[in-house]
C-alpha cells in the first residue's frame, strides 16, 4: 500500500531555467578517468 504522505514527500522542486548558467558554472563533470587519476596519484604520492 502506498504511503501517501511519504510518496508526496519524494517530490522535490524542479530546477529553474534561469539557473542554468549558474548550475553549469558549478557543475563538476569529472568522469571515471579523472577520478581514477586523482586517486592513483594520491596513492603514488603516499
Amino acid at each position, binding site marked *: 500500500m*502506498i504511503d501517501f504522505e511519504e510518496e*508526496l514527500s519524494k517530490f522535490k*522542486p*524542479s*530546477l529553474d*531555467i534561469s539557473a542554468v548558467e549558474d548550475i*553549469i558554472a558549478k557543475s563538476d*563533470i569529472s*568522469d571515471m578517468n579523472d577520478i581514477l587519476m586523482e586517486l592513483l596519484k594520491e596513492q603514488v604520492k603516499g
Partner: protein
Amino acid sequence: MASMNRRRRLEQMSNGYYNLGLSLAKERNLSSALNALSIALGLNKKNIDARNLYGLIQFEMGEETKALISWVISINIKSMNNLAQNYLQNLRNKSTYLEKSQEAISKYNKAVSQIRTVNYDMARMSLKQVVDIRPHFIKAMLALALLDIREGKAGEARKLLESVLLIDRFNAKAITYLDEMRPVSERKSGSVKLSVIGSPIKKEKEKPVEKNTSASMPVTEIYKNYSGMFTAVNVGIGLIVGACAMVFLYMPTMKVALNKAHNKEVVEISQKLSDAGISMEELKSENESLNDQVNKLNEINNTSTENMNYKLLQYVYLIGVIREYGAKNYTKAAEIFSNIDTNQLTDVDNGPGVSITGTFAEIAPKMRAEGPKLLTAVGDGLSKAGDYAGAIGYYDAALRIAPDYLQAKYNKALAYKTSGDVETANNLFTEIITAAPEDKIAKEAQRERGY
C-alpha cells in the same frame, strides 16, 4: 601509453552504456535509458552522443532545465558538428517555449511547496495548470495523479498515469500507482495482459487515453514482472557489478599502469634533466665561443684603432719633417723622416687639392740622399762621447732610411763592440761582409771580425 589505453577502455565502456541507453530510449524506457546514459557519462564525460541523448530524454520528460544544462555542456566540450546546437537553436527560434517552461516549473515548485504545507487542494490546482502548460512534465503528472488518487478521482489519476507510461513506458512510480489503484484480487490474478514487450509506441500522446488501459498500454504478467522496479533493480545490480569490477579488476591494473607511467615520467624527467645539463654545457661552450668572438672583435676594433692612430702618427711625422725641413734643420728632419711608414700615407679627396703623397715626394729624395749621412754623423759624435746607445739609435735611424748604407751598419757594429756586445757586433760585421764582400768597409769588417 597506459593513460591512452585506460582512456580508450573507458571510452569503449562508455559507448557500451550509450548503446544500451539508446536502445532503451527507442523502446521508450526513458528512466532506464537515463540511468544507462548517466553511467556512460560517468565513464567518459566527453561522450557527446550520450550527453545529447541524455538532454533529449530529459526534455521529453519535461525537464527542460536539465536538458539545457546537458546540451550547453555538450557544446562546451564540442563546439562544431554537434546536434546540441540544433536543439538549442530550435528552442531559441521558439522564444515563448522556454518562457512557458519557466512558468510551468514555477507553478510546479509552488505546488511542491503547497504539498509540504499540506495544502493539497491548492497544490492540485497548481499541478493541473502545470500539466496544461506542459502535458509531458512527468513529475507534475505523477504528483497530480497521486493527489487525484487521494481525492478518490481514480479515473483522472489513471488517465494521467497512462499518459506518463506513454512517455516513459516503464516509469516505476506510474506503474506502482496504477497497481495500487487496482482491486487486490486483480493485482493477484493479473487479468490485464500485455502482448509484447518493446512493441512500437503510439505517438498520439495528445489523444485522450481510453479507459480500457489495455488499448493504450496493456498490462500483463510479463509487464508486471518487468516493471520499472525491476529495471531499477537490474540497473542498480549492474552498477554494483561495474563498481566491483572497477575496484577488483581495473584498479590494480590501473595502479600498475600508473606506477609504470610514474616510473616512465621519472625516467623522462631524468632524461630531460640530463638533456638540460647537456644543453647547459652546450650553452657554456657557445658562450665561450661568443666570448672569443667578442674578444676577437674587440681586438680587431683595437687593432683598427691602433692602425688609425699609427696612420695618424705618420701624418704627424710628415708635418714634423716639413717643419724641420722648412727650417733647414735637415738632421732633425731626417731623424723624423726615418720614422715615417710611407705605406700609410694616402691622399684623400679634398677641396684645396692638397696631396700628402705629393708633398712627401718633394721632400723624400733629399732626405734619402742626405739623411743617412747626417744621422750617421750624429751617431758618430755620440759614440765618441761614449753614448753608444744613443749612437746606435741614430745609426738605426740612418739604416731605416737606407738599409744598405754600410757605413751606418759598420759604425753601429763598432758601437756594439766597444760597448761590449761582441756577438751583435760580429753578426753585423758578417752581414756587411756577406752583402758587399769587395767593399772597403767589408774588408774592415773582416778585420774587426778577426778573419
